[in-house]
């Protein structure tokens, strides 16, 4: 990428990369989902959509670091697990009320994100990828070693209590309650990431750093500060999603760190497209639903998902979002031709 390209990205970045959806359209989509919540009565469909909402948060937060800030962060599921474990341990071992535990778990994950980001940001490129992935790989044995602290070891933790506030109880059976809770959490998180943070000066700095780090630095953008911010914010949202997930399923086991979850998250970004809103969010919906449809495939499910990652990246390197862009570019071309 040349410097003039980078200037263009830096200037137009916020607008062009997010051109996919305007804020009113976004809230309209959220509104449609809110209305749909009243019409859906099948508890399985509700369950799948709740999972979609929670995964949206994870995918959007990952997109922030990997797609926009250009940090090769592969500790995403590790952070998700940290949020889930933090809230489970706080409620079960220390008797903290669920709402306070979720807030604390979110904060703990953000601090953990900071702790991971600090050494990472001194590293370059693939070394970041490897270090963060090593954290992911080291987590199950660490959970096992820390069994004495109340992590539950390989068995995990069961009976994470339901969330209670304003006299409402969000138990595993209160699907309609969870539907709106997860929708609200996801809608706000996604809005904050894509519309508030990425459209601000901060977001443009992320993109400029990703596309031409040297040039961005020469403009006086503090690389360390911005990347740290991206990482911590991403960890915060991920930890929040993890904590909600723990209370929703009421069970937290090291299975979170197994093949399935990280593979799902990768497929979401691969299918949706990295660094192109609404790619990752759409990817979260498509993949969560696909994963449920593949339940019957048993052991073949993860193999199919893996093949899907490879194929989408090869055939559609920029994900579903690129189809959208290709269509709009063709329209644009046709329009300019007409003018001529």
């Amino acid at each position, binding site marked *: 990428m040349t410097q003039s390209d980078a200037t263009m990205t830096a200037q137009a970045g916020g607008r062009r990369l997010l051109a996919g959806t305007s804020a009113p359209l976004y809230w309209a989509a959220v509104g449609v989902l809110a209305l749909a919540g009243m019409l859906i009565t099948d508890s399985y469909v509700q369950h799948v959509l709740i999972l979609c909402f929670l995964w949206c948060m994870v995918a959007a937060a990952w997109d922030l670091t990997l797609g926009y800030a250009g940090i090769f962060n592969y500790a995403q599921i590790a952070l998700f697990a940290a949020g889930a474990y933090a809230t489970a341990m706080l409620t079960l071992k220390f008797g903290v009320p669920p709402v306070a535990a979720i807030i604390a778990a979110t904060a703990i994950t953000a601090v953990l994100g900071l702790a991971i980001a600090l050494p990472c940001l001194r590293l370059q490129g693939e070394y970041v990828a490897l270090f963060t992935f090593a954290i992911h790989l*080291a987590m199950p044995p660490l959970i096992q070693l820390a069994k004495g602290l109340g992590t539950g070891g390989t068995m995990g933790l069961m009976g994470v209590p339901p969330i209670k506030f304003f006299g409402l109880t969000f138990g595993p059976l209160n699907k309609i309650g969870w539907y709106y809770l997860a929708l609200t959490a996801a809608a706000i998180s996604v809005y904050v990431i894509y519309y508030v943070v990425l459209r601000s000066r901060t977001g443009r700095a992320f993109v400029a750093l990703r596309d031409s780090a040297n040039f961005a630095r020469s403009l006086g953008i503090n690389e360390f500060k911005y990347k740290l911010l991206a990482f911590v914010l991403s960890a915060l949202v991920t930890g929040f999603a993890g904590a909600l997930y723990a209370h929703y399923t009421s069970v937290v086991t090291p299975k979170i760190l197994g093949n399935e979850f990280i593979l799902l998250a990768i497929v979401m970004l691969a299918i949706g497209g990295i660094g192109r809103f609404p790619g990752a969010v759409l990817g979260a919906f498509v993949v969560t639903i696909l994963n449920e449809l593949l339940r019957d495939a048993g052991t073949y499910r993860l193999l199919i998902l893996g093949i899907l990652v490879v194929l989408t990246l090869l055939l559609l390197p920029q994900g579903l979002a690129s189809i959208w862009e290709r269509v709009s570019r063709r329209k644009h071309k046709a329009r300019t031709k007409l003018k001529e």
Partner: protein
Amino acid sequence: MTQFLEVIFGGIAQAAAYSIIAVGLSLVYGTARTLNFAHGALYTTGAYISWILTVGYLGLPLWLAVLVLIPILFGIGVAIETLMLRPLRGGKNWRVTAMMVTLGLAFVLDNANLILFGAVAKPMPAFIEGTVSIFGVTVSAYRVAVLIIALIIVALLEVFLNRTRFGWAVRAVAQDIQGARQVGIDVNRIFAFTFGLSVVLTGMAGLLLSPIFLISPQGGWEPFLKAFVIVVLGGLGSTRGAIAAAFFLGMVEAMVVYQLGASWTMPVWLVTLLLVLMIRPQGLLGKGQSEAAG
């Protein structure tokens, strides 16, 4: 004391095999600038293929199995490079996409192995039985063989890289892709060749280590991570550095396992990785790699 020395020797023998995996990883990372996340899964795949060739189904003698195994592994490597990585190279954000493709491939291989061979680890008999006594320390003859074979493989690789024209071309690409292209080196051919060679190396390590560790579908991640730490510590593209780093880290691991138990292995490697990266944050390439190659 003798028990301690035995543990240390075991660690060194394993580390020698790790250094082969590390050299393979560093060859690809050094030339094609791709971090191959499937390297560990390919290690496991190599072990499974050799299991099929020997005790599993075909019952071939070891020398014949190795002769069959090498071209298979090389073919797999060339196929991955030409079909999966070459189309991505040069595209937008290709370094992230390339990493994700190899990560996707790793999960494909892991799950394919799981479906084909089951979750229960496959045992592989040691090719050499018995024990050898060195300076009063008794060690299994197999570990001594692993150490010697690994050293021979690394030595052969060193000769290849330093004494043959093709080896020079590989090193030229590793130093400067543009420059290599200008002097008429077919860069894509070098990428394909080094990837093939790298899969041969990791697969051979899979064969060597399977009698020690058993073969399981997810068993490749640990060697992959260890290989990377070795690469970072020993220096990218330096086979001798990889050997030295592998021996040092192998001894550290052996001592930790001896003192604290095997469950500490991964955390210890993680801490080692962290320390190594803190001391040499750029890795050992020195210059701004992400800018130069991106």
